């Protein structure tokens, strides 16, 4: 009797785990399979492509068996990577992309912080509405948001006329706003601003207001309360928001493509041209791999900073 009872106890969970295993397989199997085929495999193909020879008419040269590749033309090669370092212009474009991404992140932070703070400190019933107001323009088409700035910064726009009239009054030659690095920066900030507001708000909303009361009781001025209480506590939000802005800007090609001039090419444009312009697939893949590495290091840095910011607090 006792034995049978203990057997029941033993078998019951076992049937359960078997059933669980099947359920687990059925639930995680399909998405796993889909993403292995359409995400992991393509990523590996991209790495492989970066080590191949470009074809004569674009695309790729066929891979020949080692014996056949008498001239060493059809095997694998690091030529695409060597090509990157052969001309300083590619390093410059990478550097410029990092510059634009840093500037965009900084401007987004400066614009988003007061807004996020206001939403976090407004009455609870208004908060969701104020957040919705930030997200709503973001829900409109991506190209339309860029196109809007084509109108505003265009040579015949009210803003251009106003700026050039003001400059003219001081005897300064008129400027063109559109198709310039300035236009690229404005477009980048406009497209990515909500990515900064949301993580900042999520962080600021959790702050305990009694900390500020305590600081005030201890004689801290408003300025001190911000820099010594609110700001340090908000650093995890600052870092995650910065990563969410910095990373997509680094790979963006549509904004420079539409709002920038011919000289305002960034990494994304360079990659795009390798696939849809000159059709040098290995070089395009090598550039994509280098962009991936850049993104990974930025994401890693942001995580590390956010963790150490949390660590300091405790």
């Amino acid at each position: 009797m006792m034995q049978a009872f203990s057997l029941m106890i033993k078998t019951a969970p076992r049937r359960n785990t078997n059933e669980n295993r099947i359920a687990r397989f059925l639930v995680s199997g399909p998405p796993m399979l889909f993403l292995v085929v359409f995400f992991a495999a393509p990523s590996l193909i991209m790495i492989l492509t970066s080590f191949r020879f470009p074809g004569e008419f674009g695309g790729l040269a066929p891979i020949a068996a080692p014996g056949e590749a008498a001239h060493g033309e059809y095997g694998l090669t690091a030529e695409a990577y060597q090509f990157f370092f052969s001309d300083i212009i590619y390093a410059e474009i990478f550097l410029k992309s990092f510059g634009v991404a840093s500037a965009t992140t900084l401007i987004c932070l400066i614009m988003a912080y007061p807004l996020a703070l206001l939403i976090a400190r407004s009455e609870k019933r208004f908060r969701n509405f104020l957040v919705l107001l930030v997200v709503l323009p973001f829900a409109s088409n991506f190209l339309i948001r860029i196109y809007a700035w084509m109108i505003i910064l265009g040579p015949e726009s009210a803003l251009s006329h106003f700026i050039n009239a003001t400059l003219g009054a001081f005897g300064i030659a008129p400027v063109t706003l559109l198709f310039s690095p300035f236009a690229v920066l404005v477009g980048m900030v406009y497209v990515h601003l909500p990515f900064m507001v949301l993580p900042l708000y999520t962080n600021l909303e959790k702050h305990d207001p009694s900390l500020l009361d305590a600081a005030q009781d201890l004689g801290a001025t408003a300025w001190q309360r911000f820099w010594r209480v609110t700001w340090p506590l908000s650093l995890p939000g600052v870092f995650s928001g910065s990563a969410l802005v910095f990373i997509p800007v680094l790979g963006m090609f549509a904004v420079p493509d539409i709002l920038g001039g011919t000289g305002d090419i960034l990494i994304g444009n360079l990659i795009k041209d390798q696939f849809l312009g000159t059709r040098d697939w290995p070089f395009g893949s090598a550039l994509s791999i280098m962009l991936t590495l850049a993104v990974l290091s930025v994401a890693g840095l942001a995580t590390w900073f956010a963790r150490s910011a949390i660590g300091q607090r405790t």
Partner: protein
Amino acid sequence: MSRGTQWLWPAAALVYAFLYIPLAIVVIYSFNDSRLNAEWAGFTLSWYKALFNNTEMLTAARNSLVIALSASFSATVLGTMAGLAIHRYKLKVLPVLVFTPVAMPEILLGVSLLLFFLQVLNLTLGMISIIIAHTTFCIGFVAIIVRARLQGMDESIFEAARDLGASPWQTFRLVTLPLIMPAVVAGALMSFTLSIDDFVITFFTKGVGEPILPIQIYTMIKVAVTPEVNAISTLLMLLTLIMIIIAAKIEARAAAGTGAVSRNEAGQ
């Protein structure tokens, strides 16, 4: 609570203005009786008329709709599964596969899928390749929303169902699915919006045959800007706005619905 906000209002108002003025200008100029987006020359609906006579644009809209419906359907099914799996089981690989496409620059996914479709699958690029590509990045968004909903729930409900003799499938169909339904619907609507708006990944995985909406808009912007772009933009904004309102309504009703169910059950 409202400490120091008086200093923040002007800055916040400026940021809100920065967010809304450009879109307002696009809408206003869609009714402007002039080819130039510069001066107001009177009200007209001619750009909308031109748009509805533009057969290529209409085909593009229809194609984009087909793509968005197919991609959001498959992404919702797979993303819901992924969200459930990641929440319930300690998985190592699946979260990486699901969340990386969301976090990385879109161009990387576009490029790798382009190479994969052409080299490995030997696929002629077109609607199918775009649907697959959109599904790949939408899965992550659905999974994030579904997982967030599951995280806020009391696990004992599912254990209770199992203890009362429900099979895993019954537990899913009768307990889990109704509870996560608002998240599933929200994920579906989000996937639809992301898909119909997506430019970068579509740009890399499109074929030459069928016109696609974002690509048509891009060509219009790059080649010949006419206020027709403003008209299509305004209509798309309207569509997105309607989708958001529907999502909010469904979520509110679902929240009220589950509340009523649990009250009824408590009454019995």
